[in-house]
């Protein structure tokens, strides 16, 4: 589904490469973990997969077509959803409005369907009352749950999550991982999670480590 071909990335000077000649493949129905130490380039790699930035060299292909060909905007809109560590949501909206907005922008199949959005929120552990609250009134864990529910609402086949459990307690982290597993196994999506936590990586189907500018399957 998603493949990187001789992917390289550097900031400014080509001598300062974050990673070089990366050839990886991610398929639908699997949960992947990308691990590595802090500052090694995990977030940058995940941003490349999410179409938030362009590679310095090499290509990323989605279903055999390069992202440049698909169009970065189109790719982000229709094929990929991203969960960030923090500040995932529109702070001036309620949880429900966040989902409805995302569905409308991405032109999701259920766009405008409030009942569907509420159902997704409930499945992510957000009750109806909390769904109507401004997201700033929710806990960080609840906010991450809303972010996960948002990705579920959109029709994207790929979910890229960067440290989704970082701000969340152990129980909450387990719930969020379960939701991501459900997205991978039940909805046959390709879920790629960036994490430093070993317990998170252990629950994934495959783990790839970024170490000294090289990726290695563990």
């Amino acid at each position: 589904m998603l493949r990187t071909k001789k992917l390289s990335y550097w900031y400014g000077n080509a001598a300062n490469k974050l990673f070089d000649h990366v050839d990886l493949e991610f398929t639908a129905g699997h949960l992947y973990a990308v691990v590595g130490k802090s500052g090694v380039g995990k977030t940058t790699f995940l941003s490349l997969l999410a179409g938030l930035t362009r590679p310095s060299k090499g290509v990323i292909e989605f279903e055999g077509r390069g992202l440049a060909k698909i169009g970065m905007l189109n790719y982000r809109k229709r094929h990929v959803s991203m969960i960030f560590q923090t500040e995932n949501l529109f702070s001036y909206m309620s949880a429900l409005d966040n989902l409805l907005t995302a569905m409308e922008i991405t032109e999701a199949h259920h766009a405008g369907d409030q009942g569907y959005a509420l159902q997704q929120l409930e499945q992510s552990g957000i009750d109806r009352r909390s769904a109507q609250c401004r997201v700033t009134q929710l806990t960080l864990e609840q906010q991450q749950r809303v972010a996960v529910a948002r990705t579920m609402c959109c029709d994207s086949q790929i979910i890229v999550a960067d440290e989704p459990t970082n701000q969340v307690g152990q129980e909450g982290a387990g719930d969020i991982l379960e939701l991501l597993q459900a997205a991978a196994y039940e909805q046959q999506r390709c879920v790629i999670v960036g994490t430093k936590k070993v317990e998170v990586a252990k629950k994934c189907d495959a783990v790839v480590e970024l170490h000294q500018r090289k990726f290695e399957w563990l």
Partner: protein
Amino acid sequence: MSLRKRVFLNVKINKGRSVGLFLVLSMILLFILVGLILEQTAKEAIQRVKSSANATVTLTANREQAFRNITKPKGTQQQLTLPAVRIAVAKKIAAATAVKSYNVSSMTTVKAVSFSAVTETADASATHVSGRKQNTENLSLLGVTRTTSLIAFSSGGSKITQGRALRASDGRTRNIIIEEQLAKKNKLKVGSKISIKSSSQKNISLKVVGIYQGGAPASSLALGQMNTSNTIYAGVETVNQLKNTNGMADSVTFSLKNAVVAKKFVKMASLQLDSSQYVLAADDSVYRALLTPLNNVRTFAKGLLLVSVSLGTIILTIIVAAIMSKRRAEIGILLSLGEKRMKIAAQVGSELLLIGLVASVMAVSGGTTLGNLISKQLIQQNSANASSLTIGTAQNQQAENNATTEEVSAQTGTQQGILRQNQQLKTLTVHLSWNTYGKLIVLGSLIIVLAVLIGTAHILFLEPYRFMSR
């Protein structure tokens, strides 16, 4: 959630930011509106002056040419003869659309028979300087088409206090109007009859139909041969009969509908005249004297508008740029969801337009009053300067005693005309028209669009990743 709802929600939730933007936009729009009202007021004032300021063109004999003619034959002396103006020619010129009305003047000197002229001596110094002795027996009989179109009356210098003014229909009658002092001295009333003797020793009886009050005091007109109280207005034909100059006039004054066309009219009318015999002189001094200060106000208004729009754009751009930096996360999420950059700019622009629309109500309520207040002050100040400048010039000329009676009268008329126009301009109040409100909305929108385009550029052209990597 649609873009429209996002806009409303963002404005509603971020109250502090919205109130701040409301105040800034209100101030910007207020200044723009003041500029617009100022410009509109100046424009309307110019229009008012154009249509109401007295502009006249006088057709008289070409004196210069007449003087040149008498010196032509060497060694021989010739008498100065001024050609009279044919009334028929004047009527032809008066048929032009630019002419509001015309007045034919013919003057002669007569002697009082059944009454006596005002003998009050004029200001001693003036008499001394003029070096001429006043002939108190003489009266001036001035034949006119109608008194209302004379500058002395239309500018408010002279006014009818009893009876009525002379009309065109009084031409062939023996109806006259006399000055208040002359009436008082001889106990004359409306309906009284007086007798005069013409230069051809012919006695004629005239009937008083009106009494007028002279605008200028006799002392200020001491340079002339006559006391102004001894000026009697009569019909042109009556005077021509006494002078044996039927169908002719000393001068013809055309009052124009619009002061702007004075020069054009002179050019057009000159084609119908023999320039060696006649001369046309335009007097649009009131219009000219007021046009400069009004144009100054208009230029100031344009400057204020330009400064308001430019400064407004700069200030708003800085604010938008600062707001965008604070909204990095929100923009990042929108971009990661695949929202178009232009749509994000449109959201920011729509938020500002919404606040701007509310701010325009505030600007309109305050700006209309403020604009009128400032424009009145500016117009009055500038017009007063023009008026005092004109009066100052006139006084200087009188002091130097270089001015002729006609020039002094003309200057007095100009002063009175300016003062009368100033009085009229004082009442000028500009109501906010839809056109001005439309201009305000267009300029306000332009500022917002420019501020959004410039203020968001540095953020919107970044890759979405940059918003997340902090």
